[in-house]
């Protein structure tokens, strides 16, 4: 009789733990998905802004054809990489960030452009979008870290293994272009 009660209590406790762990795994996985969607929104916003930017800038920057083309190409490549997995996409977006920062650095040489209201508004949008991309990446990576810890640490890893939760990939920027500081020439 007593043994039966003890076993019953243990089973109930185990079920509660199982239930709570499973729910927290689901919550974390959804957070990761949600964070990824956030990055996607911002990346798309950047892709949409670039043609506008090129259009505005072109008239002023007669001698920067290469820089402008590099941005357009990087943007097209990045747009192709959409949906091609976290790794490919983060690489392409890294290239685009690099190309853009080179363009914005060159802008310093064009005082007329810097006085253009249209360009200033675009520049604010672009800077903010860059910030939003890095903040959403930051939040995504934090979420992935929490989720991966949960799926890999004992005892939740047992439940994660049984119910098919797999570790997620980080969004890393492993492109030389973004890490090196852009050069500014004052010639």
């Amino acid at each position, binding site marked *: 009789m007593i043994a039966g009660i003890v076993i019953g209590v243990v089973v109930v406790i185990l079920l509660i733990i199982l239930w709570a762990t499973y729910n927290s795994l689901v919550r974390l996985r959804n*957070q990761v998905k949600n*964070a990824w969607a*956030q990055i996607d929104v*911002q990346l798309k916003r950047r892709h949409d802004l670039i043609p506008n930017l090129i259009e505005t800038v072109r008239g002023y920057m007669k001698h920067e054809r290469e820089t402008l083309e590099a941005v357009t190409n990087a943007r097209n490549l990045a747009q192709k990489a959409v949906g091609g997995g976290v790794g490919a996409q983060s690489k392409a977006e890294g290239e685009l960030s690099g190309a853009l*920062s080179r363009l*914005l*650095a060159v*802008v*310093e040489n064009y005082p007329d452009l*810097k006085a253009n209201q249209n360009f200033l*508004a675009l*520049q*604010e*949008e672009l*800077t*903010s979008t860059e*910030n*939003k991309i890095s*903040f*959403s990446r*930051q*939040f995504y990576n*934090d*979420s992935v*870290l929490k989720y991966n810890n949960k799926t890999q640490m004992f005892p939740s890893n047992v439940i994660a293994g049984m119910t098919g939760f797999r570790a997620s990939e980080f969004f890393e920027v492993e492109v030389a272009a973004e890490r090196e*500081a*852009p*050069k*500014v020439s004052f010639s």
Partner: protein
Amino acid sequence: MWEQIRANQIRSVILVVAMGALLLLIGYFLGVALFHSIIAGLVIALVIWLVMSLFAFFQGDSILLALSRARKIKRDDHPRLYNIVEEMKIASGLEKMPDIYIIDDPAMNAFATGRSPERASVAVTSGLLQRLNRDELQGVIGHEIAHIKNRDVLLMAMCGVLLGTIVIIAFFATRMLFFGAVFGGRRSSSAGGGQAQLIILAIGIAFMILAPIFAYLIYFSISRKREYLADATSALYTRYPEGLASALEKLGGSKAELKSANKATAPMYIINPFRKKGRAAADLTSTHPPISERIRILRSMAGGAAFADYENAYRQVHKGGKGVISPASVASVGAVGLRAAEPEAARREPEPSKVERTREVSDLMWKLNDYKTINCACGTKLKVPPKFKSGQVRCPHCGRVHSI
């Protein structure tokens, strides 16, 4: 809701419980001393508390925003501010974009309000908007979003209600007890055992006087802890403690006092609107930690932007001792690097200068007050008041006539 607050800081919860206990005690003494029924005293205390809580919960944010004469703005009114709030919303993982308000006041300050992250607002003064650059503004908004995310707004509102209830009951009870003792001595003498009654009465009066003071001290202590936590969280979001540090420096240096703040709303702001120069460092009766100390801690965060780095910096500034952030929160954040200091001229786009910012904000304030702006070809901006009846206006500089 409680998990959030508890995970962030268990000490805050203990202090809230202490305040609740204080409220029950004051109800108890009220019952014993005035109504000869403990239940009656407790019921009165709880009813006052409940009514005030409901009011604060459902109407608190609207009242606060109305009291500070804050105006709600849309994205197009000030894109940079909107973008910065959105950036911090993304960094914090908030699900809903908070409403943004502007207070037309040259003093530099900001606050967050709203009972839950789903219904939150951030308000900044126009003075703040004028004088802070992008990084500094980001630090301040990060601090406010941290208050929303850490549920400080609700916590402080609840504590404020507890405090208010205790103060109100103590105020009326001491007066009633005093006049009761002077004019109505008959009741207690007929009951017999007057000695014991008198002692309880004396304890009751002493307690009624002391309780509000204790409640204030607890309230201030919670408020200061949450400020440190919000600073640490802002550094974590922006990965750039220097932004908030330099903003606080500007805020601390400004002498203008916020017109629309009062004592009850003071803990809501990023810095105490009533601060005095040269106040003692660790003052028990202050809603906020001293600004200079907050700056020193932020600037000592050399290793990274995680809570652990803030904790180390705090210990460094305080020469050891207990930290401010609960070990559970410190453990919840992994190692986090600082944002690389960018070469000023390169990626950071040229900021609008101080003059441009001032113009931007003053244009916004005109617009919020329903003035129409007409750009004349000679470079003059004409501001037409909303009550202007005539359909045309002449530019005072060049004489061109514009239709409205």
